[in-house]
């Protein structure tokens, strides 16, 4: 004997809509989307890596160029501070080599070094005071002699 499910008496039950194919379609779409995204992700990653790689190469080349330029600037500084150049410049501004130095024996102390104006002194570091402990504020509430 076969038992047939019987609807409850007095309760109107709506017809069930054929939901199966719709639900399956969603899942399939979601699955396809996930698979699609999953498939695209490595491609995107690879693409990003490649473009970053080229960017890195560009930065490395830029770093090499800047390093070379630093060396060139160092060479320029060395050339500009060479003795020959300094002598030439000294002649241009009318300096001549010192000759026949005279020595003075002074027994009194020299003047005090000039004071540096405050504007050229380094800023004074602010002193941070330790905050008073919280319980000290409670003491003010007590009738203690001041």
């Amino acid at each position, binding site marked *: 004997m076969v038992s047939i499910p019987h609807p409850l008496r007095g309760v109107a039950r709506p017809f069930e809509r054929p939901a199966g194919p719709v639900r399956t379609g969603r899942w399939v779409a979601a699955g396809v989307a996930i698979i699609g995204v999953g498939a695209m992700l490595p491609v995107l990653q690879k693409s990003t890596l490649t473009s970053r790689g080229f960017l890195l190469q560009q930065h490395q080349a830029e770093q090499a160029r800047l390093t070379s330029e630093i060396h*060139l600037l160092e060479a320029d500084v060395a050339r500009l501070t060479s003795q020959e150049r300094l002598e030439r410049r000294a002649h241009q501004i009318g300096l001549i080599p010192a000759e026949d130095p*005279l020595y003075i*024996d002074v027994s009194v102390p020299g003047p005090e070094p000039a004071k540096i104006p405050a504007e050229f002194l380094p800023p004074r570091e602010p002193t941070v005071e330790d905050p008073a402990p919280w319980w000290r504020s409670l003491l003010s509430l007590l009738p203690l002699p001041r």
Partner: protein
Amino acid sequence: MALQRATSMLRSWLPVALLSAFALVLLGRLVQLQVLRHDEFAEAARSELDGSMVVYARRGSILDRNGNVLAMSVDTWDVYVRKDAWSGPTGTDHSAALATLLRISPVDLRTALEQSPSLNVRVATDVAFDLGKRVQAAEITGVTLTPNSARTYPEGDLAAGILGLIGADNVGLAGLEVAYNTVLQGTPGRAFFERDTTGEPIPFGRFVADEPEPGKDLVLTIDRRLQRMAEAALKGAIQKHRAAGGALIMMDPRTGEILALASSPTLAYSTLDLSNPEQLNLLRNPVVSDLYEPGSVMKTITAAAAIDKGVVTPGTSYYDSGSIDVYGVTIKNWDDQVYGYQTMTGVLQHSINTGSVFMVRALGQPDFHRYLDAFGFGQPTRIDMPGEAAGIIRTPAQPGYSPLDVLTQSFGQSISVTPLQVMAAYAAVINGGNLLTPHLVRAIAGPGGDYVEIKPEVVGHPITPRTSATVREMLHAVVEPGDYYYPGKPRDYTAGGKSGTANVPIPNGYDETQIASFIGFAPADDPEILILVKLDRNADLLTGTQAASPVFASLANQALHYLGVEPDDVRFVGSR
């Protein structure tokens, strides 16, 4: 029927057999390629895919003792042209474009390409970095640039004989560049990478690199100001006395640090032409590699040995008759003078040959040679320069030795030394008796901030501090005799020293040319500098006292002022 079946069987099995045979052949070939010759083909595939390149390390700089740059490397480019890329009708345009940028003749450029057997022809070397970038930016077909580096010398030819030079492969050829090549050169790196069809590394492909380790910087003991003074003083003296050449060395006798070292003829970057065989001689430094007979400068060493041994004192006297007859030979004084009764200090003051013979006879040959050995004669000083000579001392162990040799050695003949050996021995005489290794490098500074100082190295104590103080006083009496003017006295400082004038030896005798020299120190009681001035074949035939000692006096005065040494002997204009 049977025949028909047999034919049918053949028809069906024949293709099977043929296909099987073909499959077997394929299988065999596969086994051959993938198993038997696997390594060979894997290697071939790797060589196609894998690229590698040498990453050059930057060569270290050479600085003076105050950190001023004497030599440094800057990045440059070598320009190559691929010949076949310029073979078409547009080749002329390309060559014109490149020639304009490089400022060379397009005709010369094309001729160089045609004459070269290589496919890739280097058309320019050490092109300036900025110019190379402009050539790169122009993107001329067939032109490639490879990085290189070039040595630059901000002080020009200053100290070129010390610094030396490097070759096209950035390896030291002469001077400190070769002596410290391994320190300066660093360690080149090598990069291994997967490459694309253009040969460029594939980004994020397999990449293994040994980073290059940049070369370290050398901090010299040389002071560029003192070096300039020394070179100018030597040049002036050579011109004034019409000498063929010369040398000038300035040393701190307390540490063995060479403060300045000039020689002539010497290497000069501005006129260097290595295709000229005569200029190849300039690659060695005569101060360390050339020998000469020092002449009367040696009398100080004889006196120091005799006093240290206790056989004479500065006040020991003897009678000078102007000459001595020994072993059938007459040894005369250099000026044919007769000085009568003289002390040992007087022997140095008047540079009396017979007095020197008196001292060495009192000392004896074995002890004299022991002292010469202790002062470092006959052996290299181990200075940090290539090509150092050891010198020659005739001893009884050598064939051809005569007992006369030890007598003439006492006043600087029959002995060959380098200027540097004389410096080292004199430093020991005046610094308390410490024989130091002369050196040119004060410190080695690494790129990471590490700084290794090279300490003074005492290699012996040939005499006692007491003997040293005694001989220093005697040499002071040479320069400041009190009763007559001596041209080697610096104006503002006390000093000591000894001159030497020696004929140049030739086989079986001496020729008429001479070497005039003076070695002196200042201040007298606490020497801070020791200077040797040597003039080779001065045509005016002035002696060491006349020609070389004034150079010392002037240079010592300048140098001590520059070093901030308080003068001993100056005119004070005011005192309160």
